């Protein structure tokens, strides 16, 4: 009986104690939970804000990168269009390449501006560099093509003169003049022109084959080789041709000033005066020594 009473009393006391302590515990537990939830919410908000900031930063940076490239491409296109030696087809071809990149970058800019995810925007931003390599590959390529095309045009224009000069030499020869030196110089000039032209033709093909897929190192290797060709073949060849022409002018001068007309009648009458008056300027301007290959 006493045991029953003791158990009942203990149970009552335990229930009383538990009922009085439980609300406090529950309150403490609830507060902790709310704190944790709030903390997690704050962390999530901060993370979202940070990602949003990162997204805006990458978009802003990408816009700057694209704007700079579009400016460079526009300047490059103006350079092409204002060139006086490029043919219409060369201008069209080069401008079309430039315009393709302008269109691609403009489309990419619109995509990046509309990106809502940082990772996607970052990948797209990298595409501005790796998809175009405007400064490492594209612009050097176009400018080299301008250089080579111009040199080829000049070479072709000089090559047109060769048969004309040959005719004049033949005329002197038919009059019994010694033209061996003249012929030798013309042959050398013609050979130089042929070598230059072949080199430039090959270089044009090589440079045109350079693309973004070539990578920056591959493109640099090609460009270096072409520049070496320009220095060692073209410049040196031009220097040699100028030297040949300078000597030919002297020889022609001597033949003409000898007073023996090359062609009939009126043309020969004018010959001495023209040559004599041109002699001082010719020595001044015809100075191949200024070329430094």
């Amino acid at each position: 009986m006493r045991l029953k009473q003791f158990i009942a009393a203990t149970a009552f006391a335990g229930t009383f104690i538990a009922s009085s302590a439980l609300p406090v515990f529950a309150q403490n537990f609830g507060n902790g939970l709310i704190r944790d939830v709030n903390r997690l919410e704050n962390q999530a908000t901060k993370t979202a804000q940070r990602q949003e900031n990162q997204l805006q930063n990458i978009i802003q940076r990408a816009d700057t990168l694209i704007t700079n490239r579009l400016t460079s491409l526009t300047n490059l296109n103006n350079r092409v269009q204002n060139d006086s030696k490029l043919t219409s087809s060369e201008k069209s071809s080069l401008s079309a390449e430039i315009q393709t990149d302008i269109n691609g970058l403009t489309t990419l800019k619109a995509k990046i501006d509309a990106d809502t995810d940082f990772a996607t925007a970052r990948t797209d931003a990298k595409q501005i560099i790796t998809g175009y390599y405007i400064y490492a590959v594209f612009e050097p390529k176009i400018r080299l093509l301008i250089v080579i095309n111009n040199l080829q045009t000049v070479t072709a224009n000089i090559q047109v003169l060769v048969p004309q000069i040959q005719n004049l030499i033949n005329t002197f020869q038919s009059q019994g003049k010694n033209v061996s030196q003249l012929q030798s110089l013309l042959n050398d000039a013609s050979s130089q022109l042929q070598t230059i032209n072949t080199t430039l033709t090959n270089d044009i093909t090589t440079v045109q084959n350079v693309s973004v897929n070539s990578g920056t190192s591959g493109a640099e290797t090609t460009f270096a080789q072409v520049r070496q060709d320009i220095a060692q073949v073209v410049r040196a060849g031009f220097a040699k041709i100028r030297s040949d022409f300078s000597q030919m002018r002297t020889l022609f001068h001597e033949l003409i000033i000898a007073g023996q007309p090359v062609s009939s009648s009126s043309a020969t009458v004018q010959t001495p005066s023209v040559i004599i008056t041109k002699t001082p300027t010719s020595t001044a301007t015809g100075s191949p020594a200024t070329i430094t290959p």
Partner: protein
Amino acid sequence: METQSANPSPTPNIPQDAPSNPPQETPVATAQNPAKPRNQKHIYIILALIVLILFVAGSYTLMMSGKKTQTTVNPQPTSLPVAVYPTAITTPAVTPITSSNVDQTLNNTDTTMQQAINQTDTDLNSINNIDKSQDSTNGL
């Protein structure tokens, strides 16, 4: 008689009225002066015609010049702003080289080659000046 005197014929009345009216000379004046107004009228008509002709000619000229300006101005907004550049000459028009122009030709060729070399130097320098580090993906 009285009736005759009372009713004089109209013809005799005129001389009677004439002395009484001093402006009898006015008819004479109007008879002598009509040449002046007529001449003046002719002059006015001629002047008016000249003014009219000048006006018509002026307006016609203005119309024509207006049309001309329209034809030159209108195409601009409709056409795209395509810049017209001088087309490059691939092969020069070479006149036959003779003893009279060989020196000049070789001299010009020498100048052309020098200019080509100079332009090449400029272009190669511009390639050197390209900042290739801008194509680095570092930081992206």
